[in-house]
């Protein structure tokens, strides 16, 4: 079983409207790099000028906010990408 990334609604247009994208085993950083490599249009949303995840994008894993992208993703893990929203 692979890990998967949950794509927020705001980014689904760039991944053919998929809600989950499977990623090979590795760290969170490697999973994000894989996602961006497969869907280059995400680069603008998931990469800041220094190549890191922008501060306005949050990651959640196993029920908690994730700060450390060197964490290893286990098979079956769901990495949740949360883009900022302000619809009111």
């Amino acid at each position, binding site marked *: 079983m692979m890990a998967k990334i949950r794509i*927020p*609604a*705001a980014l689904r247009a760039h991944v053919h409207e998929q809600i989950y994208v499977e990623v090979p085993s590795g760290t969170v950083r490697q999973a994000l790099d894989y996602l961006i490599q497969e869907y280059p249009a995400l680069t603008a*949303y998931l990469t800041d000028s220094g190549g890191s995840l922008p501060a306005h994008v949050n990651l959640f894993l196993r*029920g*908690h906010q994730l700060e450390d992208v060197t964490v290893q993703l286990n098979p079956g893990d769901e990495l949740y990408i*949360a883009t*900022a929203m*302000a619809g*009111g």
Partner: protein
Amino acid sequence: MHFKLHHAMLRVGYNVPTLISSTTTYSIPMNSGNLEPLSDEERAIYEWQLSVPGFGVVGQTKLKAATALVSRVGGVGGLVAYQLAAAGIGRLILAHAGNVKSSDLNRQLLMTYDWLGKPRIESIIRRLKELNPRVEIVGVPENINVDNASRLVSQSDVVIDCAPLFEERFELNRQSIVHRKPMVECAMYDLEAHLTTFIPGVTPCLACLLPEKPPTWTRQFPVFGAVAGSVACLAAMEVIKVISGLGTPLSGRLLRYDLRTMEFHRFGISRKSDCPICGHLEERK
């Protein structure tokens, strides 16, 4: 229709609670000596919620004594205000600029067709007063900005963040920290929504979670009224809980859900010690 800006003094104080966890309750400390008893009419109107365990006459009386500030009273904030008025909150401070547009009407349920082109705040007050003529409403025909936020937040017991622009949300957050007021944060996009309740010094603030705005955010976003209304009703319940002490507020936890798939996720979130807005606050347990 007339409305005016009030500068009333706070009727209830706010102090930081002792502990927030998944098993504890939280409420704004109230000065019970100042609580006005319920009238016979109020007991009749709220009869069905007075029987909610953990709420009762005490909770209703606290609600009657409380003031909530709603930042923007549109698709989300309009439903927050409507539910709070229905539940019997004593006073609403409502900030919303502009005139009713036809594109408001799919979700902003306090705006009416007959009020197209006229001030939104007037439609908002009229609709709320039709439901609950007892609620005191302070209508502010402006959106939250650096000039009005401190004054409006200082007059409230709890604030609800429903603005469609990050600049307004960040300013409301800044002032909620300055004045130590709990802030219920609710927002949506497409069929997704998020909700959390920030308690200054206890939980993260909006800037901990979101230190900067996304450059790609646009003023117009995809929205069904039912999605905006769903998170609004959840937010209204958070306000009722924080005021009355009922249940467990969503503090230190972020709810995100997607009505496209009906998936609901709840995540733990933590304070950032280097947060420029709340990092200086002493940690409260």
